[in-house]
């Protein structure tokens, strides 16, 4: 597998769940200001 593809897949593997978690946390945090 080319190095760049490996790099992309590896970062996507961790970025997708982290983004999902951060999105839910921001959603939760926004309740403080509502």
């Amino acid at each position: 597998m080319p190095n760049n593809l490996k790099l992309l897949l590896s970062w996507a593997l961790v970025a997708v769940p982290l983004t999902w978690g951060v999105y839910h946390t921001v959603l939760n945090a926004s309740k403080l200001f509502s």
Partner: protein
Amino acid sequence: MSLSFLDRQSTVADATFNRWLVPPAALCIHLCIGEVYAFSVFNLPLTKLIGIAKPAPGDWTLADVGWIFSVAILFLGLASAVTGSWLDRAGPRKAMVAAALFFGGGFIVASFGISLHNLPLVFLGYGVLGGCGLGIGYISPVRTLMSWFPDRPGMATGMAIMGFGGGAMIASPLSVLLMHHFASATDLGVAPAFVTLGLGYMVFMLLGATIVRVPAPGWRPAGYVPAAAARLISDKDVTVSTAVRTPQFFLLWAVLFLNVTAGIGVLSQASPMIQEMFKGQVTPLAAAGFVGLLSLFNMGGRFLWASTSDFIGRKNTYFVFFLLGLVLYASVPSIAHLGSIGGFVICYGIILSMYGGGFATIPAYLKDLFGTAYVGAIHGRLLTAWSAAGVLGPVLVDYIRQYQIGHGVAKADAYSVTMYIMAGLLLLGAICNALVGPVSSHFHHHAAAAAE
């Protein structure tokens, strides 16, 4: 597949390997083990396993359940202290696989404890086995990243340890979703949620173990020239058995312990604290938002402060944590009296960013003082400070609050004394940090002498 795949030798990278593949490998571990900070989402369901709608006779109490987290943090410290030297020798892949088996397996054993309503089995599963997985999984990726990024060790450790903060953000909504999915009229779905999480974490952590590599001996990033040794940056190694006898180790132990105690006590009480200090102005829903916001600052601070320490130095970074933290803690009661929720939130956001930053900066501080060769094991020993603070911090805040309320202080004012005590702890931390000096040369490990 032979077991030699796990050996350190099998993980040595070839010349074409891109070092930016290692941070995702480290994050695969830390995003999973960071789940421990979200364990409180299980607290209430675990107290209603028999009664379902509300606690029934025979159900576990909140106090019983609260010990699961404490046991896990205790074993995190113990496991990292005991296995630190082995981790340095065994290499990151073996360590990550062991961490995956312990952490994922711990969830599965705990799920049996939940199904059988056997609390000691939950302690054994999540607390002891899971805690060992936490300890083993925490150090190894951090140490590996430092060897790949000698030019930016703070940023490297910040990336991994940021994942630990991010893990809670994933685990919290994911656990709630899973419990909802498996819930029925007669079951809250906690045990199947544990099994799913355990298997999922195991697979994710094993993926990280397959990606990870160590640099070949003598490898350096292109164009990197090691900086000349400075007063607080040594190019000499100190063995773990020697390091733990140096004054610097005890001072850094105290620095981490005091920084964590000050932060963790607030984290554990964040929701009731904002509701009681701004009575009638902050709803439980908004308080949950406050907790979410603090975890964002906690995560962001891990990366930002650790990266900043590469430029301003570790000692100066900790001075910022302690002195700015002191000012902020001392200001909180006045800000609360003024009724400024915005000011209160900003103060605590910065405090929590420095709490996270303290975790992320300490490995690079250790590397600066004790060299790279044994830093994993030394870091492992130092994490006992986290265990001690994890138990003491919440107890301290809770005890002081109860004492105040018991002596007639209004709930809204009961936190003021706590804040001043936290400011005092940070002052002590600043003094310990000021006393950190270079490690005396007679502690340095001389490879030739050792070989003779």
